[in-house]
C-alpha cells in the first residue's frame, strides 16, 4: 500500500469507529439521562409488568442496555478492524 492509500485507510477507519461510537453513546444517553432522569415522571405513566416504566429504566433497564452496548461495541469494532485490515496479529 502506498503511504497515501494507507493514510486514507486509517482516516476512514477512524471515521467508522467514531460513527459506531456516537450511535452507541446516543443510546447510552437516551436510556440513562433521558429515560431514567429527565422523562422519568412521564414514563412512570406507563407500566412494564409490576414496574412503572421510568422507575424500571432508572433502576434496572438502563443497566441491561449498558451491558448490551458494550458487547455491540466490541463486536462492531472487531468487524471494523477486519474490514480495514488493522486487526491485531495473532
Amino acid at each position, binding site marked *: 500500500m502506498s503511504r497515501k492509500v494507507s493514510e486514507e485507510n486509517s482516516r476512514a477507519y477512524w471515521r467508522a469507529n467514531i460513527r459506531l461510537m456516537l450511535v*452507541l453513546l446516543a443510546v447510552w444517553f437516551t436510556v440513562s439521562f433521558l429515560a431514567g432522569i429527565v422523562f422519568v415522571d412521564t414514563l412512570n405513566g406507563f407500566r412494564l409488568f409490576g414496574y412503572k416504566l421510568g422507575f424500571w429504566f432508572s433502576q434496572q433497564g438502563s443497566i441491561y442496555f449498558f451491558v448490551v452496548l458494550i458487547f455491540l461495541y466490541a463486536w462492531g469494532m472487531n468487524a471494523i478492524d477486519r474490514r480495514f485490515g488493522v486487526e491485531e496479529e495473532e
Partner: protein
Amino acid sequence: MSAQLLTYLFVGLSFVLYIGIAIWSRSSSTSEFYVAGGGVSPLANGAATAADWMSAASFLSMAGIIAFEGADGARYLMGWTGGYVLLALLLAPYLRKFAKFTVPDFVGDRYYSRTARLVAVICVIFISFTYVAGQMRGVGIVFSRFLEVDINSGVTIGMAIVFFYAVLGGMKGITYTQVAQYCVLIFAYLVPAIYISIMLTGNPLPMFGLGDTMNDGSGAYLLDKLDGLTTELGMTAFTSGNKSTIDMLFITAALMAGTAGLPHVIVRFFTVPKVRDARISAGYALVFIALLYTTAPAVAAFARMNIINNVDGMAYAEAPGWFSKWEDSGLIAWSDKNADGVVQYRGGDALIPGKPIYADGRGDHGERLLGNGVTPGANELYIDRDIIVLAHPEIADLPNWVVALVAAGGLAAALSTAAGLLLVISTAVSHDLMKKTFMPRITERQELFAARIAAAFAIGIAGLFGIYPPGFVAQVVAFAFGLAAASFFPVILLGIFYKRMNREAAITGMITGLAFTFGYIVYFKFISPGDNNPSHWWFGISPEGIGTLGMLLNFLVSLVVCRFTPPPPDEVQAMVENIRVPGGGGTTQAKGAK
C-alpha cells in the same frame, strides 16, 4: 451451628483461599507486579475488575441507600454502571494499545511533560487514599459486627491479609485473588436476595421478583404495595424521589465520568493481552457488576417492606433478637414518644440531631436511653442505612449459614477494592515518582523492591486511617468520583480523540477542574456546612454532582488554552495515530518490559 461459629468458619476459609492464591501467583518482575505481565484472560480480568470496583460501599451501603431513598438511589445504579460504557468505548482499548503501566504514564508521555505526570501522580495518590481509608474502615466494621472483635483488631487482621497478597503478589496476585473474591461476594449477595425474593414474591430471581406480584395471595404488585405502605406512613413513596432533576443529572454524570477516570479501574485494562481483549473485558466486567447492581434495588425494596411490616406497630417488649442486637451496636434507636411501648415507624426524622446519642441506662421497656431531643413528628424509630444488607437476612429470619455468608462477602468486597487501590498507590510511588521522575537509574530489581516497600507503607497508612478515621474521610470518599471526573477523564479523552491537544492545555485543564471541584466541595462541606442546601448551591447542583461542572470547565479551559499554544511535537502526534489503531507497532507489555 451458631451464626457466630459459621461466620468464623466462612471468613477463615475465604482467607485461606486468598492466601493460597497469593502464594501460587507471586510476581517476579515489575511487569508482573504492575500489570500481571499483560497476560490476564479477558474473562478473568472482567471478574477481577468487578471485585476491584465493587467496594464496601457497593456491597454494604448501596442497597441501604436505595431502601431509604427509593427512586433517588438510581443515581448510584446508573452512575456506577454507565461509567463502564464510557470506559469501554472511549478509554480502555486505546490505553491498552498505549501499553504502559499507569495512568500518569499516559499523561506524562502524551503531554510530553514531567509536570503533567506529577500533577497526575498527586491526583492518583489523593483519590486512592481517600477511597482506601473507607475500605479499611469497612473491614473493621464487618469484623466488629459479626465476629465481635473490636474494630482495631479487625482492621489489623485485614491489613495483614492484604499485605500478604498485595506485597508478595503485586498485580498478578491481586488479580487472581480478586477473581476468587468476586465469586465469594456475589454468592454472598445473591443467596439472601434469592431467599427473600422467593419468600415475598415466589420468584427466584430478585431482579424480576421486584416487578412481580406479592406472594400473600393479594395479587398486588410488590412495588405498588410498597408505594402504598410508604405513602400511608407519611414517607415519600418508594418509586418517587426528592432530588431535583438537574441535581440527579449532574450527580449521575459525575459518577459515570468518575468511574471511567478512576485509576485503579483503568489500570485493570492494562493487564489483558490485546486491544480486542480490553473491549470485551469491559463487557464481562459490567455483566459481573450488573448481577449485583440489578439485585440491589430488589434487596432494597424487599428490606423496606420487611422492616415496615415487622417493626411498625410492634411492642418493644416482644421485639425479635435482631432488633435489640442492632440497637446495642448503635444502628437502631427508639424513642417512645407517646409512651405506649409500641414502635411507631413513620416518615421524617425521629430524633434531633438525626443520629442517636446513647445515654446510660435503659427505659421503661428495656430500650436504650437517648440523649437526643425528639422531633414533633410521629416517627419514633431511627434506622441506620447500613442495616439493610447487614441485618436483612436476620430480619427475614434466614438460616444461620446465610447470615454468616454476608460477613465473608462484605470482607471480600472491601479487601479486593483496598488491594487494587494500594497497588495503584505503590505503583505511583515506585514507577511514576522514583523510576520516571526522580531516580531514573534504578534497576528493575530495585524498582520492584521499591514497589513492595511502597505497598507495605501504603497498607500501614490505610490501616491507620481505618483505626483513626479522620473526620473528613467519610465525607470525601463520595467525592473521589467528582475529582476523578474533573481531572483525569477530560485529559485522557482529549489525549486520545483530539490530536492537537497539548501540554499547556492539559495542565491548566486538570488544575482548573480539580481546584474548582475541590473548592466547591470544601466550601460546602467544611467552611460553611450550614449553607449546604439547594438554595445556596450553584444552579441547584449539590457538592456530590459538582464534578460534572468541574469536568465541563476542564474541557472548556483545555480547548481554549490549546488554541493559543503551540501544537504537540510530531512524535506525540504519531503516538496518538498509533494508539487509535489496534494492530501494528504495539508491543505487548510482557515483551516491552523485559
